[in-house]
Each structure stands twice: as C-alpha cells, then as structure tokens.
C-alpha cells in the first residue's frame, strides 16, 4: 500500500507541476493537454481520497481491535494532517484571494477608458487624415478632369507637391498607369486591383493599409484614396483620345510614423486588454481550479505520506510494545530488527540489549533454580531414603522439615506433620515421652541448646524392642532458632553387636572348653574301667555312678561346645541348586509318625533356590525340634508347613499349636543363650537366624494370638525357576 500511496503522491505532484506549467507555456501544453491534466489530477485526487479512506478505515479497525501501535499511528496521522492542512489552507486562501485581487487589479475603468480614448483618438486622427486625403484627391481629380491631357502631368506634379502627397498615380480603367508623380526618389510602379478599379468606378473610396517597415521594423499606415477622374472637357476636344475614358486617381499618403506607431500600439494594447478582459473570469476559474487541485493533492499526498511516515515512526514503538508484552509473558527471545541511528534506533538497540541480558539472567536463574531444585530433590531423596530420621524443629517445637524415616521411626500421625508441634505429630506420646521431655529440656536451656548433644533411648512396644540414639544440633545462623534432630534406630546394630559378642564368646568357649573335655571323658572312663573291679561293691557303685555322671556331663558339655562352635564358625556355605519342596518333604518325613500331626501344604511343582542344602536342613530340623518340644504335653498337637512361591522369593511358613514363646524373651529369641527350655543351650534359633541371613533371607518369629508360634522364612530365588 505504501508504494501505491507514494506513487500516487509522486504522480500527483508531477501533474501539479505540469498543470502550473500549462498555464504559462502556450506552446508546450495545449488546451486539450491541460484538460487532460486537470482530468488526471481530479482522477488522482479521487484515487488519493479512496486510498486515504481505505487507510483510515483500516486504521480505525486496528484501533478498534486494539492492535498495538494503531493509536499512536492515528495520533501521528492526525498531527501530520493538521500540520499540513492548516498552513496549506491558509496559503491557499491567501493565494486565491491574492490571485483574484491581482487579476481584478489588472482591470481598471480608467485604464479601459484611457485605452478606448486612445483608440478613438487614433480613429479620429485617421478619420481626419482620411478626410484630408479625400478632399485633396477630389480637388486633384477635379483639376485633372478640367485639364487637357498634355497638361495633366505637370498639374499632377504641381498639385501633389502642393498637397504634400507621397504618390499620385492616374490609372487607366484597365489598370495601366497613365500619369504618375511621387515624392520618393526610387519608385516602384504601383499596382491597382481590379476590385479597386471597379469599386472606384462607382465612386471614390479610401483604403487604409498596414505594413511593416522592413528597415526599421515600425508599423506604417498608408491611406490610399481612389477617386474617379472624369474627362468631360477633354472629350469635347478630342473624342479619340485614349485619355478621354474615365480614369482612377490613386493617392497614397502615409500617416506620420509617430502617429502610426502610437495608433497601432493603442489598437494592439486595446485588443490585448480586451482579450484579458474576456479572459478575466477564465483566469480566475483556472487559477482557482489549479490552486484547489494543488491544495487537494498537496493535502491528500501529505496525508497519504503521513500514513507511511506514521507507520514508520510507530512501527518500532509498536514492536517495542509488542516485545514488552512478550517479555512480560516470559519470552525473552523476542528481538526487534534495528533500524536507523536516531533515538528510536538507540531505544530499539538498548531494548534488544536489555532483552538479551534478561534472557541471559533468566537462563542463569533457571539454571540456578534447576541446580537448586536438583540439590533439594537430591537432598529430599537422600532424606527420604535415609534410614536415619531427620527432623528440623523451631524454638516452639514446631516441625519445619522431616523425612520419611522420622515419620516411620517415631510413628507419626497420618498427614503432613510440617507446622505441627512434634508432640502432636507423634501418635504414641506416652511411649516417646522420655524423648519429648529430653527435647523440651534441651530447648528450654539456652546454654544447652547452643551445643550438640546426643542421648540413647530404649522403647518397648508390641513385643518389639527399639533402641534409638537422638542427636540434637542447633542450625547455622542463617536459620537461627531451628534445630535438627537426627535419630538413629540402633536396635539392629545393638542386636548385631550382641550377636558378634556372643559369637566371640562362643568361639572362645568352644576353644577353651572343648579341648579338655575329651581327656576328662577318657580319664573318667579309664578310672571306671581300672578301679571298678578293684573296689568293693559299694565303692564300685559309687565310682560307676560318678564316672558315668562325669562322662554324661562331658558329653553334655561337648554338645553345648559343638553348638557354640557351630554358632561362632565363619560362614562357609556352599550354595547350589536346591529343590526346597523336596527338602521340606524329606524333613517332614523325618518327623512323621511322631507324637504330633504335620499338615503339609505344598504345591505340586518343584521350587528351586540357590542354597546350602545341609545348612537349610539344619535350620528346618532345629525349628521342627523346637516345635516338637513345644508340642509336648499339648492336646491334639499339630504342625502346619506351607511353601509358597512369590516374585523372586519363596516363603516358608511353619506353625504349631504349642506353648509358644514367653513374652519376655520373644524379642531376643534369636540371641544366643536365650531359651525357654530347661536343658536348651539357647543357640538353636541363633544358628537358624545366622544361616538364614547367610542365605540373604529373613526369619520372623511370632506368637500366634491364642496359642502357638508362627515362623516365617523368606528366601530369595534369583529367578531360578
């Protein structure tokens, strides 16, 4: 559109120049061309009006749609339009007024009167001269007609000289010269038209002829008088005389040059003045029309150009506004093309620089935020997966942060505990009363709360023992008033330590006790063998009884030492593919027909695991032995064995309806030397647990609700099946 507007504006201006030229240059541009130019100008005016109307319509539509920059463009267009309209209109009005007045000033009644007077004066002068030559001609003609032909020449000369006539020629009726007299030295024989002869035959007449002096270039006016000359008297004397026919006297008299020049000038000026007079209205109309077209084209072209300029000016601002919106939305990639070195260019450049800086800063911030989030996420993952419970509390004992282990370890109430008081977050306040009291005391003591302290707590709940270590530390200055509680559940560690200690004890016992047992037994047997026959019956009886007791006790000690030895041995299991179902069936077979009923709940298919067959057999035998002991003196004694395969593991469940395990030892039942049996070493289940753990499995032992025990063994299968 801007090319169209520019083209139309340029063509319009070119037209105006041509139009202005056409008024002054007659040869260059004809009236038809002028008319065509006017028509073309009108066409362009209308074209511009249509174009501007379209532009205005579009602009208003843009304003209505609230397109960025449209209001500014409208404002600029109005400003430019007014800037042009006001001065151009003033110039136009002044010009039209001035022009009209100027044209009117050319015409003045006095000037016209003076010109008319001059012309009349010229006419009167010519009339006087015409009358003068007429009288002179008549006089000469009369004299000639009354003079004899032979005397006419001298008469003609005399009278011409007397009347100061330039040329006097007497023509015959056929146009031939009869007599001639001239004041000029060189005379070109004059000619007479037949029309003049005919006309003169009917009576005299005067002709006024205009000519240009070739030498001086001045206008010359000649008066020519044609007068018929009668030959009445001469005819009377000689009728045969040629000259007796009617002749024509032609007198030629120039009007004095000064008068002629003035008269011709006055006539010429008068004619030009009259032409101007008639052209007056036309001039006014044409000039007004031209000026109007100039005004319209100038204004319309300016308005049209103002659209282009306004758009050019407002475009960077609109782009800036648009880009600002984009930036507000968070798009820092918006780049405005730089143009020009003016303030707008500088603004655009600065904006682009600012945008790129913002982009860079945002990217950095995003990167930092991402790193922070990653770090936080990392920390969260660590905290979540940390076995150690971590709780951050403030001065008022409100939880600011805690991890999953904390919730699990201290048995938090369901829901988010953040913001709650620690004591309110814990379900069993009574159980953890000591812990809460310790924390309260720590926070209540300013000196104490500046340091890091730790304490161990032991809880028992639902047949389970829990040992924890609490470590309380104040946080750094930036988060002053906050404390971090790090709680470690050391129940298992304690148990393991206990196990290790027992292992060591067992190993030492086995080593220290086992060695002297065999010689003791052998010596006891030898004493019995050697001295029983030498002693009397009574003494022999005492000896036998004593040595038998020694041997028995030594055997018992051997059993105990073996068990200790077994418990303390270094793990040396030899895993191989084992059908656990088959093993279970074999062990169960050993105990069939005993004093209790065994219910075997196995699936048909074999289940294979990687395990040491002998060790697992020992585990099962230990458990079955314990069950057998527990079922003694029980009515309707029963055992139930189940084998179930789950994903990557097998679960063996052994239940009995025996006497169960006393509550006071159930938590430590897997510890060595913990037993409910009178003659038990307390190492059976400890060995069982050790073997199971060596197979990366777990064993859980629980008293059933009413009666009996349930032992669950879980062993990994490693996808063997």
């Amino acid at each position, binding site marked *: 559109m801007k090319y169209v507007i520019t083209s139309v504006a340029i063509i319009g201006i070119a037209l105006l120049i041509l139009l202005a030229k*056409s*008024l002054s240059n*007659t040869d260059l541009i*004809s*009236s038809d061309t*002028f*008319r*065509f130019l*006017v*028509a*073309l100008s*009108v*066409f362009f005016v209308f074209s511009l009006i249509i174009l501007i109307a379209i532009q205005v319509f579009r602009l208003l539509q843009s304003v209505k749609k609230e397109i960025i920059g449209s209001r500014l463009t409208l404002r600029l267009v109005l400003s430019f339009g007014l800037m042009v309209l006001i001065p151009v209109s003033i110039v136009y009005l002044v010009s039209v007024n001035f022009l009209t007045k100027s044209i009117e000033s050319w015409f003045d009644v006095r000037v016209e009167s003076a010109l008319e007077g001059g*012309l009349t004066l*010229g*006419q009167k002068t*010519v009339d006087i001269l015409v009358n003068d030559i007429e009288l002179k001609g008549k006089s000469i003609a009369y004299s000639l007609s009354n003079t004899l032909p032979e005397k006419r020449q001298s008469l003609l000369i005399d009278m011409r000289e007397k009347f100061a006539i330039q040329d006097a020629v007497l023509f015959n009726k056929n146009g031939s010269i009869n007599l001639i007299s001239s004041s000029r030295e060189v005379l070109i024989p004059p000619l007479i038209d037949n029309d003049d002869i005919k006309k003169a035959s009917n009576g005299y007449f005067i002709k*006024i002829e205009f000519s240009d002096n070739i030498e001086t270039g001045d206008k010359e*006016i000649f008066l020519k008088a044609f007068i018929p000359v009668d030959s009445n008297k001469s005819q009377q004397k000689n009728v045969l005389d040629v000259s007796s026919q009617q002749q024509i006297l032609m007198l030629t008299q120039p009007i004095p040059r000064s008068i002629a020049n003035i*008269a*011709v000038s006055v*006539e010429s000026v*008068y*004619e030009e003045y*009259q*032409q*101007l*007079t*008639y*052209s007056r*209205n*036309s*001039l006014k*109309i*044409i000039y007004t029309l031209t000026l109007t077209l100039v005004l319209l084209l100038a204004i319309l072209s300016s308005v049209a150009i103002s659209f282009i300029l306004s758009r050019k000016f407002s475009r960077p601002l609109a782009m800036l506004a648009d880009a600002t919106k984009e930036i507000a939305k968070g798009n820092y990639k918006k780049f405005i093309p730089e143009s020009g070195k003016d303030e707008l260019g500088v603004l655009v450049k600065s904006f682009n620089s600012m945008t790129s800086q913002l982009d860079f800063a945002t990217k950095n911030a995003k990167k930092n935020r991402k790193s922070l989030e990653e770090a936080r996420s990392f920390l969260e993952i660590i905290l979540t997966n940390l076995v150690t419970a971590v709780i951050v509390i403030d001065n008022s004992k409100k939880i600011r942060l805690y991890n999953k282990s904390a919730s699990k370890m201290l048995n938090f109430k369901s829901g988010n505990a953040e913001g709650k008081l620690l004591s309110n977050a814990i379900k069993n306040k009574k159980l953890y009363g000591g812990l809460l009291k310790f924390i309260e005391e720590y926070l209540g003591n300013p000196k104490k709360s500046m340091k890091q302290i730790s304490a161990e707590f032991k809880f028992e709940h639902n047949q389970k023992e829990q040992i924890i270590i609490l470590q309380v530390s104040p946080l750094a200055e930036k988060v002053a008033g906050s404390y971090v509680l790090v709680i470690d559940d050391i129940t298992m560690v304690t148990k393991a330590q206990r196990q290790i200690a027992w292992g060591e004890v067992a190993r030492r016992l086995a080593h220290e006790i086992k060695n002297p047992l065999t010689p003791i037994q052998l010596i006891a047997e030898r004493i019995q063998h050697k001295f029983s026959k030498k002693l009397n019956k009574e003494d022999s009886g005492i000896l036998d009884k004593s040595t038998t007791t020694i041997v028995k006790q030594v055997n018992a000690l051997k059993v105990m030492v073996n068990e200790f030895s077994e418990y303390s041995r270094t793990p040396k299991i030899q895993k191989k593919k084992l059908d656990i179902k088959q093993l279970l069936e074999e062990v169960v077979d050993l105990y069939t027909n005993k004093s209790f009923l065994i219910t075997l709940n196995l699936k048909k298919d074999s289940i294979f695991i990687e395990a040491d067959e002998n060790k697992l057999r020992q585990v099962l035998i230990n458990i079955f032995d314990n069950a057998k002991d527990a079922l003694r003196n029980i009515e309707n004694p029963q055992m139930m064995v189940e084998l179930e395969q789950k994903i990557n593991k097998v679960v063996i469940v052994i239940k009995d309806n025996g006497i169960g395990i006393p509550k006071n030892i159930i938590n430590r039942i897997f510890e060595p030397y913990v037993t409910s049996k009178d003659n038990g070493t307390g190492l059976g289940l400890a060995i069982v647990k050790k073997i199971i753990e060596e197979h990366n499995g777990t064993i859980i032992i629980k008293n059933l609700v009413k009666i009996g025990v349930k032992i669950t063994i879980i062993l990994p299968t490693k996808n063997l099946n």
Partner: protein
Amino acid sequence: MMAYFMHYLKSKIYIYAVLIIFLFSGNINGFEGEKSIEIKDFSFKKNENSYSIEFVQKIKLSKKIKSAINKGIPFNFKIVCKVFSKNNFWFDEKIQQVELFYRIKYKALKKVYEVHGVYDKKKEFNALEEAIKSLNIVKDWNLNLKNKSNVYKYYIVLQVKLDKKKLPKPLQVNFFDKSWSIESRKYEYLLERLT
C-alpha cells in the same frame, strides 16, 4: 451477423469511450458548447483530377462573441473534413483528413471586419453580418482522395468549429465556459464507390 456484431461493438465502444472519457475528464466534457453552426446543401463533385465539395454553413454568433469580435479578439474557425471507408468487419478506416481555416477579425483603426482564409486574399467588410455572410458558401474545396479498389462505401464527416487553440490561453483552457465553444455537429454524408 458479423456486421451486426461489429455495429453492436462499435456502439458499445462508443459507450465505453464515453465512459472512459467521462471517468478521466469528469464532467468536464459536459461543458461542450451548443451547436451554433449549421451545415446544409452539401454536394460532392468529381472534377477532372480530383473531388471537390460544396456546402453552405450558417454561423450564428452570440452577442458575447460578437461583442468580443468587436473588441478586436480574432476568431479562427476550422472546417474539418474526414473521409472514411466503411468496414463492416472492423473499424472504419480514415482515408483522409483535410482542414480549412478562416479567420474574422475587427480592425478598430480601420473600422472594418477582415476575413482571411476561405478566399485567396483578405476581404474587408464594414459590418460583421456582411463578413459572416461572406463565409456562408464554401465551394470548390478540392479533396485529393485516394481510391481503394476493395472499398465500395465511403462517407465524409464534416464539422466546422471555432479553433480554440487560437484563442487566448485562459479561454482555451476554461472548459467550464461553453460560450467559447462554437461548433457544428458532425455531419456524415455517405458516398458511393469513388470512380
């Protein structure tokens, strides 16, 4: 059929031409002058080596024009004679165009009306009516027509008009003032094959 179509097309072209002219010149052409010159008694003669035409033109001048003549403004007239050969299947071909100029001017000093042009030499008249009357009959206007063997119908378009190019410039370009547009309508005279 073709002739009818061409006739239709020509008539349409005329309409289009008028429309285009109107579009480009607005209503400027609406200011054409009234037809103040009438042509009649047209005759076409074949001379020995040429063709000549003869007609009578009746010029009626308004008071304004007469007054302008009396004020010394020269009036130049132009007689335009165009000869066309008729073509039923295409646009008519202009064979020839001849123009004849004459001029009436009042000489204030001499108090006579000079008539130039139509006649061999200048003629002077004491009264304007006489001068105009002297222009009425145009005769023996020779046209050097070229014959065309394949053309059978000719027509002459004759128009007399004031030669506005000779008027003072402001009067030439003032198309709003129709009083300065003196012209006859275009007279068409159909001729048979030129022999």
